[in-house]
C-alpha cells in the first residue's frame, strides 16, 4: 500500500504552526481581520498514518513519485518552517538591483537578497520527481494522480462533472485537465470539512471533487498530529490553507504574493460567504449534516465570489485593508451626507452612497458608531456585491446581508437602488435591522432622491472623478498609495486610503498588474512577520519604488527608474504636503451621524439583539 507523504523533498516545505509564525501573522492582518480562531497548540509532528490511509487510498500505480516514508523519518522533521517561509517569500519580483534602506534596528537583512528560487533547483532527479508530484497533485491538481482516475481510466464521476459543467457559462466549464487551467495565476478552492467541494474559481466543482478530496486529506493528516497545515511551497506555486469553522479554503498561487497576503485574500472569500449565509447558519448546517452540499445555498452566488477574487487581484483596497473614496469637493460631500442624515426611519443603521463603485459618503446611526466602527472589509464586501451583479440595476432590491466583521451571525436588511437609471453609476445602500422595513426605507430613498434633485447633486457627482498624479506637481512621481492611520481627529472612522489613477506607463492590464505586484512585494516586505521593515527603497527594472510606514501613515510610491534617493525623499515630502492640503477632498473627513433608535436609552447592544431576533425569524436556513 502506498502512502502519500509530503515531507521529504528538499525543494519544498510544509509550513506548520510554529509559535513565531502565529504571533507574527496577525500583524499585517491587524486592520482587516479579527484574531483567527483558536488554533491548535504547537506540537511535534506526530503523524498518524492509518488516518491518512482512510482519507486517501491511492492505488498502487507503480509511479515512483509516490513516496513512502516510515514514521521515524517524519517525526524527525523539524516542523518549524520559519526560515523556510522567509527564504521562499523572498523570491518576489526579481529585480536586478535590489537595494534597501531601513531605519528599523531589528532588521539585519543583508542589502542584497537574491531571489532564491533558482538556487533551490534540485539536481537529484528523484527529488525533483517527488517535488513534481506535489506540484501536480495540489497546485496543478492532476486528476489521474489521485488514485481515482489513473491515466487512461477516467472516472465516471469526473466525466459527469464535466458534462454538467458545460451547461454553465464561461470558466466554469473549463477543462480541469488542460494546461490552460493549470496556468491560472491564482486558484481558490473552498471545501467543507467532509471534503465536499463548495467553490472553485476556475473549472466546475464536480470535476474537481477528487482534487478537493486530496486537499482535505492533507488538512486532516496534519490535523491528526495536533497541528495545522498552513502552506506548501513548491518551485512555482504557493499553496495556502485556511480553516474557518467547517470550511477549508485553499489558494494555489503562482503570483509572488506572500503567504500572509494570500491568507488575507482567503479570509475575504470566507467573509463573502459569511455575508451571504452568516457564520451561525453555516455552523448549524454542518452540525446537522456533516456532508451537506453548501453549493445548494450558494447557487447563483458564484459570480459574487468570482467578482471578489477579480477585485482582490486588481484593487489595492484589499491589500491595504482600507477604503478608497471618490475625491469630492468637501462642500458637496457634506451636503450629500446631510441629505442622508435627514432621510431616516427607525432601525436604519447605515446610509451609504456609492458612485462608480467608490464610496461617496457613509452616515451611521449614532449608537452604532459609538460601539463599533464599520470595518473596511465589510465595505469591500458591500461594494463587491453591488459591483458584481447587474441584478441591482432594475427596481429596488431588498435583501438580507451579513456584515461579517460587524457581526458574523446576524443579518442586516439592505435596500439597494440606483439613483440614476439607466446609467446606473450612483447607488444608494440603506441598511436596516428590521426585515419588515422595506416600505419605510424606500420612503427614505424618495426623500433622498428629492433632495438630490433639488440640489442638482447627480450632475455634480457625475463630474467627480479620480485625480491624476500630475496634480501633485512632482515630476518623477508616477503613482502612489497613501493610507493614514487612526489619528485623533479621525479616530474610530473608516480606514481609508487615497491613490491617483494609474497612468502611462501603467495603461494596459498587464502593466497595472505588474505595478500592483510590485506594491504587493513592498507590502509583504514591510509587513514581513520575521523582519518587518519601516522603509524600503527598491530599484526595480522599470521603476523605483519607495515604501514607508510610520505611526501616522503607510505610503507606497512609484518613481521613474532614474530617480535618485535624495530626489525621492524630497518628492515624498512634497507629496505629503500636497495630501495634507487636499485631505478634505480626498477623504471622508467628518461623517455625520443620526439617531434612529426609537428609545434613546437603547444602546447598540439592544439593537444588536434586535438583529439577532430578526436573523432568527428571518432566515432560518434549515
Amino acid at each position, binding site marked *: 500500500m502506498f502512502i502519500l507523504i509530503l515531507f521529504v523533498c528538499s525543494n519544498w516545505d510544509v509550513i506548520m504552526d510554529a509559535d513565531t509564525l502565529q504571533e507574527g501573522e496577525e500583524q499585517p492582518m491587524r486592520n482587516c481581520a479579527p484574531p483567527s480562531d483558536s488554533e491548535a497548540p504547537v506540537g511535534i509532528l506526530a503523524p498518524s498514518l492509518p488516518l491518512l490511509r482512510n482519507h486517501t487510498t491511492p492505488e498502487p500505480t507503480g509511479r515512483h513519485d509516490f513516496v513512502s516514508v516510515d514514521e521515524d523519518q517524519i517525526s524527525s522533521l523539524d516542523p518549524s518552517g520559519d526560515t523556510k517561509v522567509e527564504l521562499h517569500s523572498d523570491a518576489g519580483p526579481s529585480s536586478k538591483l535590489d537595494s534597501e534602506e531601513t531605519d528599523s534596528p531589528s532588521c539585519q537583512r543583508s542589502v542584497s537578497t537574491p531571489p532564491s528560487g533558482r538556487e533551490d533547483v534540485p539536481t537529484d532527479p528523484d527529488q525533483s520527481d517527488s517535488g513534481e508530484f506535489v506540484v501536480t497533485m495540489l497546485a496543478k491538481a492532476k486528476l489521474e494522480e489521485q488514485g481515482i482516475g489513473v491515466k487512461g481510466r477516467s472516472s465516471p464521476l469526473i466525466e459527469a462533472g464535466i458534462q454538467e459543467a458545460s451547461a454553465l457559462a464561461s470558466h466554469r466549464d473549463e477543462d480541469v485537465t488542460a494546461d490552460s487551467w493549470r496556468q491560472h495565476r491564482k486558484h481558490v478552492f473552498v471545501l467543507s470539512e467532509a471534503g465536499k467541494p463548495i467553490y472553485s474559481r476556475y473549472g466546475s466543482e464536480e470535476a474537481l471533487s477528487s482534487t478537493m478530496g486530496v486537499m482535505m486529506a492533507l488538512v486532516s493528516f496534519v490535523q491528526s498530529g495536533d497541528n495545522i497545515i498552513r502552506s506548501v511551497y513548491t518551485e512555482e506555486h504557493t499553496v495556502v490553507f485556511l480553516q474557518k469553522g467547517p470550511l477549508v479554503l485553499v489558494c494555489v498561487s503562482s503570483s509572488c504574493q506572500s503567504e500572509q497576503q494570500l491568507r488575507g485574500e482567503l479570509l475575504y472569500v470566507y467573509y463573502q460567504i459569511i455575508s*451571504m*449565509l452568516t457564520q451561525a447558519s453555516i455552523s448549524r448546517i454542518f452540525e446537522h449534516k456533516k456532508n451537506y452540499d453548501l453549493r*445548494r*445555498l*450558494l*447557487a*447563483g*452566488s458564484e*459570480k459574487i465570489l468570482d467578482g471578489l477574487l477579480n477585485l482582490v487581484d486588481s484593487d489595492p483596497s484589499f491589500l491595504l485593508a482600507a477604503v478608497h473614496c471618490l475625491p469630492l469637493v468637501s462642500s458637496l460631500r457634506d451636503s450629500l451626507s446631510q441629505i442622508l442624515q435627514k432621510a431616516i426611519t427607525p432601525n436604519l443603521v447605515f446610509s451609504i452612497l456609492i458612485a462608480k463603485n467608490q464610496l461617496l459618503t457613509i452616515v451611521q446611526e449614532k449608537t452604532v458608531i459609538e460601539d463599533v466602527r464599520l470595518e473596511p472589509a465589510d465595505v469591500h464586501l458591500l461594494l463587491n*456585491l453591488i459591483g458584481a*451583479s*447587474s*441584478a*441591482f440595476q*432594475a*427596481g*429596488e*432590491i*431588498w*435583501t*438580507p446581508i451579513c456584515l461579517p466583521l460587524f457581526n458574523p451571525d446576524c443579518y442586516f436588511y*439592505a435596500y439597494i437602488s440606483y439613483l440614476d437609471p439607466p446609467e446606473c453609476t450612483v447607488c444608494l445602500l440603506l441598511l436596516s435591522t428590521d*426585515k*419588515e422595513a*422595506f*416600505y*419605510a426605507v*424606500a420612503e427614505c430613498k424618495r426623500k433622498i432622491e428629492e433632495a438630490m434633485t433639488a440640489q442638482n447633486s447627480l450632475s455634480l457627482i457625475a463630474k467627480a472623478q479620480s485625480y491624476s498624479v500630475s496634480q501633485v506637481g512632482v515630476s518623477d512621481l508616477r503613482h502612489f498609495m497613501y493610507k493614514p492611520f487612526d489619528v485623533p481627529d479621525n479616530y474610530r472612522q473608516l480606514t481609508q486610503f487615497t491613490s491617483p489613477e494609474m497612468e502611462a506607463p501603467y495603461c494596459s492590464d498587464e502593466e497595472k498588474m505588474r505595478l500592483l505586484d510590485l506594491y504587493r512585494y513592498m507590502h509583504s516586505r514591510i509587513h514581513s512577520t520575521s523582519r518587518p521593515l519601516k522603509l524600503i527603497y527598491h530599484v526595480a527594472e522599470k521603476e523605483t519604488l519607495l515604501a514607508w510606514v510610520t505611526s501616522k501613515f503607510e505610503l507606497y510610491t512609484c518613481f521613474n527608474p532614474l530617480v535618485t534617493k535624495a530626489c525621492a525623499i524630497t518628492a515624498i515630502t512634497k507629496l505629503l504636503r500636497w495630501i495634507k492640503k487636499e485631505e478634505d477632498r480626498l477623504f471622508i473627513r467628518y461623517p455625520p451621524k443620526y439617531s434612529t433608535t426609537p428609545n434613546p436609552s437603547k444602546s447598540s447592544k439592544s439593537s444588536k439583539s434586535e438583529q439577532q*431576533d430578526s436573523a432568527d*425569524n*428571518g*432566515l*432560518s*436556513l434549515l
Partner: protein
Amino acid sequence: MALRELKVCLLGDTGVGKTSIVWRFVEDSFDPNINPTIGASFMTKTVQYQNELHKFLIWDTAGQERFRALAPMYYRGSAAAVIVYDITKEDSFQTLKNWVKELRQHGPPNIVVAIAGNKCDLSDAREVSEKDAKDYAESIHAIFVETSAKNAININEVFTEISKRIPVVDAAGGSSAKSIKLGRQVSESRKTCC
C-alpha cells in the same frame, strides 16, 4: 378614475424567468444574460383595467434556495401570486407544486394564483406538457398561461387575468383596504408571525 394598488409576488425555481417576465411587463425589454436576483426586487407598473387603474406592486423574488425562507415576507398581504416554471424543466414544475402547497398553508386566504409556464418559445425542448400543467392549474383553480418573456407572448395577459380575478371593490371598501394599506397589514402580521 379609481386607483387600486395590487401587491403581486413572483415565485418559482431559480432560472425559470421570473425577472424576465417582470422586465417584459414593466419595461418591455428582454436581456438574455441577466444575473440571478438577489433577495427580491420591487417594481411597479400601473395599467388601466375597465374603469380602474391598477397599480401593480410587484415583488420579484429570488429563486435560490438561500432566499427561500424570506418568501413569506413577500407573499404575505399579496393580492396575487404568479408562480413561474420553465416548460423545459420538469424539476421547476415540481417546485411550483411546492409553492402552491406553501401558499395554501401560509399564504393569504384569498390570494389569486397564476401559473406561468415560461420559455414557451423553446417548445422543442419541452419537458412539461401543456395539458398536464393546465389540468393541474384547473384542479387548484389557478390562472394558467404559457408565456415567453423573450418573445413577449402572453406576458401582459397574465396580469390582465389577475386584474379580472381580483374581487371588485365593494362600497364598504373591504378588499381595497386589504390591498392598499400595506404598511399596516405588514406590521399587524408581524406580531403574529415573528
